[in-house]
């Protein structure tokens, strides 16, 4: 899923300080699963904004609403009759949400309420970790099913570098060296030889480096 984190409240308050009718818009997709942008969090943020207003002696109206998804025009359409009632929208979907909203409702003031972090999953309750950098050409099967592009700090395809120590990456003791894990796993699997083969430079054409990406599936196009 796409993992996001709520923006500091102060930052959100600063964004919406000139607006008095605010819609906090949640999303039932990834951000619900990572407990940051679902209906529950929309209610919390709305309440927080109201407490801030109370504290500052301001009168504001804040309402919350949660869409099935904010990355789908069909659902974005659902709020067409209500969006004009608000002078600001705080989307707590991933970065796609505020954009789909801005594109569909060009005159609306849309603000991002979360910081979109990465593609990953929950490794423990309350702890998420990155897994994929969306390089566009998946190669994890060469590395024991683990991705060195997203998970090695230097995206080395012929790792590990000389900074790996005690299973940790040179950048921080809190970051696992994925190459350490890859080597150990391949050794256990009796497939170490595969790692001895030189991996040539990767084509990043399919990654973000090749420009903004777009996917067309003719059979699905109406």
């Amino acid at each position, binding site marked *: 899923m796409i993992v996001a984190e709520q923006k500091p409240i102060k930052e959100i308050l600063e964004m919406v300080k000139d607006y008095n009718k605010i819609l906090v818009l949640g999303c039932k997709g990834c951000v619900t699963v990572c407990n940051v942008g679902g209906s529950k969090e929309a209610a919390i943020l709305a309440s927080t904004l109201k407490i801030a207003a109370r504290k500052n002696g301001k009168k504001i109206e804040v309402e919350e609403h949660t869409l099935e998804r904010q990355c789908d025009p069909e659902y974005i359409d659902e709020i067409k009759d209500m969006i004009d009632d608000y002078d600001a929208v705080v989307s707590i979907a991933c970065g796609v949400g505020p954009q789909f909203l801005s594109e569909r409702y060009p005159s609306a003031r849309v603000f991002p309420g979360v910081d979109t972090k990465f593609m990953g999953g929950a490794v423990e309750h309350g702890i998420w970790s990155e897994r994929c950098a969306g390089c566009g050409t998946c190669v994890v099967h060469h590395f024991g099913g683990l991705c060195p592009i997203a998970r090695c700090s230097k995206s080395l395809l012929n790792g590990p570098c000389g900074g790996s120590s005690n299973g940790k990456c040179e950048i921080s003791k809190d970051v696992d060296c994925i190459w350490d894990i890859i080597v150990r796993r391949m050794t256990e699997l009796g497939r170490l030889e595969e790692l001895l083969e030189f*991996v040539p430079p990767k084509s990043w054409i399919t990654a973000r480096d090749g420009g903004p990406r777009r996917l067309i599936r003719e059979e699905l196009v109406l």
Partner: protein
Amino acid sequence: MSEYKSGSNLEKVLKAGHFAFTGECGPPQGANVEHLKEKAAHLKGCVDAVNVTDNQTAVVRMSSWAASLVLLQEGLEPNFQMVCRDRNRLAIQSDILGVYAHGIRNMLCLSGDHQRFGNHPEAKNVFDIDSMQLIYTVKTMRDEGTFLNGQDIDVPPKLFIGAASNPFAEPFEFRVYRLAKKIAAGADFIQTQCIYNMDRFREFMKRAVDMGLHEKCYILAGVTPMKSVGMARYMAKQVPGMDVPASLIKRLQGAGKGKVAGEGIKFAIEQIEEFKEMEGVAGVHLMAIEWEHRVPEISELAGMLPRPKV
């Protein structure tokens, strides 16, 4: 066609079977050419080639190719270092052409320390290719005469290709395989991480020799004399992939006030003496960081002078 790959002094020294001796010089954090020349002057005549670091530890310095040119003008042979952190394959290949055009003949290929260590942690890194692929790039340009895209190069750069190896980083068992991989990718010579744990290095070299790696490539053992107990402790604790045994720290402590640096040099000399005899070791890479002025003394004591003329 010459019998040499690059014709660099370092290559000739190694090929002639001499025990090579390389030094290191970090470019200034500014355009202070005089200071750079001063540091270089200490190394002149003491070593066969001088590594010029490339934004080492991710701290911005004068570019390594520019500092390499200064050394060249001063009559020293540079070993131009390049990291993959700061350049994509376009910049990498054009810099390779550029340095070759200006007479640089050795190049050390590195991934580079992550920028989070350095003085611009907010920077975006590149890592378009890794150190292994960088070695392959230089080799392809030199031996195939083509760029990475297969296109012909009009006068290919002929560089003596170096790579680094850290025998002490983990996973330990994999390190010698990674060395083999670098050699297969095209490394002509290897400079290792600073060695302090001699037992572990002996074991590493034994495995390298068993695999015949020393016959395919020149391996230079890395030596950095300890200046102080504090430095030893810092390296032991703070530098990832560095192995400083407690016994060495103890030995330095035992040297007594004012004598630690001397003891550090003594240990380095003992190491060099052992490396001269060690099977598979073709030379020593001396990284006397901000201690360039002690290099003549160390070279003398280690019996490395005079350097061979080839």
